[in-house]
């Protein structure tokens, strides 16, 4: 039932221990990243592509947008660029354009807003859990991991509840293709068409002062109007950024709690440990394994020469497992890890740090609180075995079968 490392002997001797384009490396990365940190903290798995593995180097690069640009950065292979997109999402902007858009988008994710919205997210969790029975076998990714984050993001955007299942039907298909989304795939066309229609409808109505879409189409006194295409793109971005990742957090966390069931029992006995469990899952199993940057001028990182135009793969997972920062037990999942013993990289760091991070934490906490309260005998299905999802940037099991 445990995750067995799948190491080849070549890894221990090579200078390219981790290739971000190899789904096998992304799915089970721990040993390869350990070798990278130890022997080759800046490695070059492919021409012009450098993997940065040490905690301090990853965080330093994330804090230096002038040297490491986000423009045109999302996918590593198959050609990148925003040429195919009708507007530039926030993840692919540098300051000053980034700063303006971020200031605008972050108002919906501020802690004060989230405190107000907590009952709404709790209701979403309750409605989902109400459909489940004790003793029933469920597949967590499909039955919880996809549904709760999707509905939460839709609620924040202001998508009418009657449309949630339809929208999720499209978004699930698009999410499964990430990061290689084709703007021509039918579900992308349906989803973006739906959002565009909602943007136009909302813009024609008076401001309601509620929901991201309403806010984007009714700019404040100091805000420039956005085109409908831009507003649609930002909504799409929030959906795609906030669902697959948060769902992965939920399944990764539940796997760790149930594969060593003493952990689950501790949370049942003391639910106040749940926020700490969420933080430890974020660290131990970063949903988004890495982010990309483009080097703007020739330089060195740890003595390794990097040229202008080269791509950096900043391994968030490796930063989270760096023993020099987190201690010798960094590889272990521990409910007793002291908060703030090092800086978490899972949501990024600095100007691009995830806007939805507080929301993701809230969803995970409320969902685990609900499960602990209703289904204390929750356990892994007897024949369950952990297999990585075949994804190129996101890490989670392909499925998680449990009995409630």
């Amino acid at each position, binding site marked *: 039932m445990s995750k067995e490392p799948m190491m080849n002997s070549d890894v221990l001797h090579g200078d390219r221990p981790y290739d971000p384009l190899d789904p096998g490396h992304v799915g089970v990365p721990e040993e390869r990243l350990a070798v990278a940190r130890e022997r080759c903290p800046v490695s070059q798995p492919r021409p012009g592509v450098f993997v940065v593995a040490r905690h301090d180097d990853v965080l330093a690069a994330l*804090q230096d947008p002038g040297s490491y640009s986000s423009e045109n950065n999302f996918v590593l292979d198959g050609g990148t660029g925003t040429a195919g997109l009708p507007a530039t999402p926030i993840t692919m902007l540098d300051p000053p354009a980034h700063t303006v858009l971020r200031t605008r988008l*972050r108002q919906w994710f*501020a*802690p*004060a807003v989230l405190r107000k919205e907590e009952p709404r997210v709790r209701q979403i969790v309750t409605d989902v859990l109400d459909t489940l029975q004790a003793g029933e076998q469920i597949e967590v990714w499909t039955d919880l991991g996809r549904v709760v984050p999707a509905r939460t993001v839709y609620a924040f955007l202001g998508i009418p509840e009657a449309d949630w299942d339809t929208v999720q039907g499209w978004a699930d298909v698009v999410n499964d293709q990430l990061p290689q989304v084709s703007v021509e795939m039918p579900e992308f066309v349906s989803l973006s068409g739906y959002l565009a229609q909602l943007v136009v409808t909302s813009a024609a109505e008076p401001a309601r002062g509620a929901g991201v879409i309403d806010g984007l189409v009714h700019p404040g006194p100091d805000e420039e109007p956005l085109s409908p295409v831009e507003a649609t793109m930002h909504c799409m971005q929030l959906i795609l950024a906030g669902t697959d990742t948060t769902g992965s957090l939920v399944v990764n966390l539940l796997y760790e709690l149930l594969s060593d069931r003493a952990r689950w029992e501790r949370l049942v006995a003391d639910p106040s440990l749940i*926020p700490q469990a969420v933080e430890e899952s974020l660290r131990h199993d970063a949903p988004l394994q890495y982010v990309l940057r483009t080097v703007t001028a020739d330089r060195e990182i740890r003595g390794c020469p990097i040229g202008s135009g080269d791509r950096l793969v900043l391994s968030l997972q490796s930063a989270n497992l760096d023993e020099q920062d987190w201690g010798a037990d960094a590889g272990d999942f521990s409910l007793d890890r*002291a*908060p*703030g*013993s*090092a*800086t*978490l990289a899972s*949501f*990024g*760091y*600095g*100007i691009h*740090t*995830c806007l939805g*991070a*507080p929301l993701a934490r809230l969803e995970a906490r409320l969902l685990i609180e609900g499960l602990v309260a209703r289904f204390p005998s929750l356990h892994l299905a007897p024949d369950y075995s952990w297999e990585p999802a075949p994804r190129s940037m996101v890490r989670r099991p392909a499925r998680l079968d449990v009995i409630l």
Partner: protein
Amino acid sequence: MVHIEVDRDRCEGHGLCEQTGPEIYRLDDDGELELLVAEVPAELLAEAEAGARVCPVAALRVLS
């Protein structure tokens, strides 16, 4: 003498410092960070440093 430097241009009110170091950091109702101590006493130094480390936008520094 240990004190905390807040980069107000960077702070976005994420509030992780408050969760980690509630005796040092507090967000007011507008999401503005308040420091509850002008100088960090020795017994709160670890809490102050942990709070600074969890800041996702590198807005906090503990200086001596």
